């Protein structure tokens, strides 16, 4: 369909556009208004939601008003923000003062924060239009978006399958063509794995590159906000908006933000050393299709002039155990605040027998938390509480911190041999809904290749890399040294210049 037909259709088939940059161009050329674009996004959401359920909250009126303000601003000749009129969705773990922020939990079903997260403020300053909040695993704990208290999200490529998680809604709504960009959060792979499962591009920035203020904490030393989009170029555009130092987050890095956008889209990778994570490729649990996708990507990079070297990350067998000690420890602490005393779910009928035994206060705590949290959240709180307990902390938490230092050391060594690292995102393509819900260990192993970047604090990107025999998207992952997002984006855009995997869309 020719692009200029967009104005003559209602709703315009905005999903046919291939980039946020195109949406920006249409508006600056006067070929579409922000209101038209947002209406088209809302129509697209309306059409796909019954089968996908990517959103926990859609605010049609707020979005259209914001779009109108952007159009007015443009008409009055003011300079426009970098995402002016671009509809975006944000994971429901980011605080928004005009929409609920639930973390897909019963605990926060009614919670409306009195402030915007830093990344939300920056999106608004850039004139982006937030159309809604996306579904996720409860408190970002999960790899399939099945632990949400607001129902499961389905993969737009195959609705019997998971979109991945925890940012499943954020990836699914981009894949479904609802919006060109969304914001997710990544603690152990929660941007990259669903991006891989849904055939979209997802970036986890360096720890500290993007402010965590207003990101509801799961595991504070691992959490990072990042963009999910149709292409590397769009992802770069959004990173440019959200990255940078912010004094309200003490762990945010006070380092200049480079220009991520202007140096993209050259296919020349001569002089670049790409380290191939051979052990990951050769590991037993990995799907043949996934292996094939990585191997094909190696050829693409070689054709573009890059040099391939095999590198190892010797302690990678400790990634998942280390992660599943540190993350629950921090989570058990971060989630202590949800006790029903000040906000969030409070049990209305305290069992008199429990009150008798524990006193009314402790009984209220127990029942409020018992009712407000789902099974996976409770499991991790218990694991974390145990691992931090007197007599066990040395065996678990402190041991995990030591392992984490070794894991970082591995990356330092690897990056002395290669400029970036190539490997799979997940061992398999999207699995069937319900397939792993009864087996937490299998679910945790989804993070096999992604948690390393979180433990080391380095940036990593997930790129669409073709499809499996079943027609499911496959992903590859690139990892770079701290603060080298630009390198990931440059190489990623070179890959996307040579391939069209990222242009593939699921059948509606």
């Amino acid at each position, binding site marked *: 369909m020719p692009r200029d037909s967009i104005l003559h259709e209602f709703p315009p088939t905005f999903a046919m556009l291939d980039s946020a940059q195109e949406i920006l161009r249409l508006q600056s050329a006067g070929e579409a208004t922000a209101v038209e674009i947002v209406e088209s996004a809302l129509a697209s959401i309306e059409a796909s939601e019954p089968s996908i359920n990517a959103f926990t909250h859609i605010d049609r009126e707020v979005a259209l008003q914001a779009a109108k303000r952007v159009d007015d601003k443009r008409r009055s000749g003011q300079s426009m923000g970098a995402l002016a009129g671009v509809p975006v969705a944000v994971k429901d773990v*980011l*605080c928004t003062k005009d929409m609920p*922020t639930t*973390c897909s939990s019963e605990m*926060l079903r009614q*919670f409306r*924060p*009195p*402030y915007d*997260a830093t990344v939300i403020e920056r999106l608004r300053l850039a004139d982006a239009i937030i159309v809604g909040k996306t579904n996720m695993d409860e408190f970002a704990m999960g790899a399939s978006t099945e632990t949400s208290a607001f129902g499961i999200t389905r993969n737009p490529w195959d609705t019997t399958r998971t979109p991945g998680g925890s940012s499943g809604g954020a990836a699914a709504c981009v894949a479904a063509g609802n919006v060109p960009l969304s914001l997710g959060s990544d603690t152990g792979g929660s941007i990259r794995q669903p991006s891989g499962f849904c055939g979209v591009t997802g970036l986890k920035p360096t720890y500290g590159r993007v402010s*965590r*203020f*207003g*990101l*509801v*904490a799961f*595991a*504070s*030393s691992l959490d990072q906000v990042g963009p999910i989009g149709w292409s590397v170029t769009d992802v770069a555009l959004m990173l440019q908006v959200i990255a940078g130092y912010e*004094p*309200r*987050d*003490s*762990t945010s890095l006070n380092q200049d933000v480079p220009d991520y956008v202007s140096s993209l889209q050259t296919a020349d990778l001569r002089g670049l050393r790409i380290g191939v994570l051979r052990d990951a490729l050769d590991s037993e649990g990995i799907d043949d299709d996934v292996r094939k996708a990585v191997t094909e990507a190696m050829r693409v990079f070689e054709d573009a002039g890059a040099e391939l070297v095999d590198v190892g990350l010797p302690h990678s067998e400790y990634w998942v155990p280390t992660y599943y000690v540190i993350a629950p*420890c*921090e989570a*058990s*602490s971060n*989630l*202590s*605040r949800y*006790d029903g*005393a*000040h*906000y969030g779910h409070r049990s209305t009928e305290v069992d008199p027998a429990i009150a008798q035994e524990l006193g*009314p*206060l*402790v009984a209220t*705590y127990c029942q409020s938390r018992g009712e407000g949290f789902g099974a996976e959240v409770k499991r991790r709180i218990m694991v974390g*509480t145990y691992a*931090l*307990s*007197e007599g066990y*902390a040395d065996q678990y*938490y402190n041991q995990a911190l030591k392992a984490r230092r070794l894991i970082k050391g591995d990356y330092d060594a690897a990056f002395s041999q290669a400029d970036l690292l190539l490997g799979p995102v997940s061992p398999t393509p999207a699995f069937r809904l319900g397939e792993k819900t009864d087996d937490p260990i299998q679910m945790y192993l989804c993070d096999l290749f992604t948690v390393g970047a979180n433990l080391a604090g380095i940036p990593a990107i997930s790129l669409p890399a073709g499809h499996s025999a079943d027609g499911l998207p496959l992903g590859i992952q690139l990892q770079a040294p701290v603060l080298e997002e630009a390198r990931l984006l440059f190489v990623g855009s070179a890959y996307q210049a040579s391939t069209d995997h990222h242009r593939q869309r699921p059948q509606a």
Partner: protein
Amino acid sequence: MSIDGYPTTTIIGLEVHVQLKTKTKLFCGCSTQFGAPPNTQVCAVCLGLPGALPVINDQAIELAIRAGLALDCSIPPMTKWDRKQYFYPDLPKGYQISQFDLPICADGFIEIADPADPDQQRHIGIIRAHLEEDAGKSMHDEAAGRSDSKIDLNRCGTPLLEIVSQPDLRSSGEAKAYLSELKLRMTHLDVSDCEMQEGSLRVDANVNLHIDVEGKKVATPIVEIKNMNSFRAVERAIDYEIDRQYDEWEETGHTISDVPKRTFGWDDSKEQTFKQREKEESADYRYFPDPDLLPIRLPVERIDRARANLGELPAQIRTRLQEQYDIKPYDANVIVNEGRTLIEYYEVVASTSGDGRRSSSWIQQDVLRTMNERQCSIDEFPIDSVTLGNLLKQVSSGTLDNTRARDVFTHLLENGGTVDTAIEALGIVAVDGNELETLCQELLEANPKTVEDYHGGKKQAIGALIGQARKKNANANPQQVRETLIRLIESM
């Protein structure tokens, strides 16, 4: 100590929380002002709302460094934050940000005058001092079976420095001396107001006894006493606890290995400690480093700068006052212990009068007593330091005797004004030498018995005549009267 029986040694360690005098809280920009309406000085950070993050208030770090240096602590090159986890409604995050294994101050000491022998010093070790955020305040109304609790989170996130002493204190008197010295240093350096009534200084006392049972040391179970709201209460609670523990040991025979550490409250009206209801199982706070905050580097240059900015510390002032004004250690101690404004007052009085000793004794006896009677501070004292200095100058030069000087002092207290106007108002004039001699002659003639007694060796007999002389003429200087009487009697 009212213990009969075996000799005992009291072992006391104090944990003191001082609220640091910052304008804003430890991790957010909310005001720390005391007494605001409940829940009006709060924000997302101190309320622990989802997504809010702490940001360190550097002023608190600076004050903690000052405090540490004033306590002769070492300040490590790096300090960090840890989470101390427990559930309570006045702790909105479910954890308190504190410092566990790398406190900002470590290994210091305070020297106090030994209450049993004021010329001796006692060395009291300080294990550590760490920064932490305060919790909110819970107000419980459990009357008539209701369980109605109200929470005020204004105090939540206020910076505290917890100063932990070694168990080096041996009596309630030493505990009080330690607290006084600690408070003096903290207020002197403007680190804290140390107002116990407002909660800006809080004391927990760990107490037990070592009982010497025929050469064998028996330790009683440790009790931590809380809720003491004055230094006096600390003294009384410790003294009560010493007796109680001895009695308990006599009754039960329980020693430190039989009973874990217990928490007792202090009931000021009943004047006794009582066991608090909380469970006795030892709490597991599951400390771990707070991932929201970076460790703090404290370069040696920063510590040196803070040290250079400390100024004169109380101990140094004591020595200087002794040397500069020729006063005794005890007197210097009393003056310095009253704080910076009284020290300044004293120094003006002493230099104006040129008599440091007289200034010291007048301030201790007359000024401090009056302040106490009137419940006023030295800033509110009606007689300014220059006026008192002028008054004492006249006493030293012999123009005024002590009695008349006190009359002037009282007059100034009531009416204000200068020494000269007071003297005039009181009609004080110097008595002519001849007039005085006539007065004395008359008295001796009227009291032959006194002359007899004096010659018989009872020289103090003339005291009565001095009194009579002043009745006849209030301006008669007692010293001159005495001298004249003696001269006349001996020439008889």
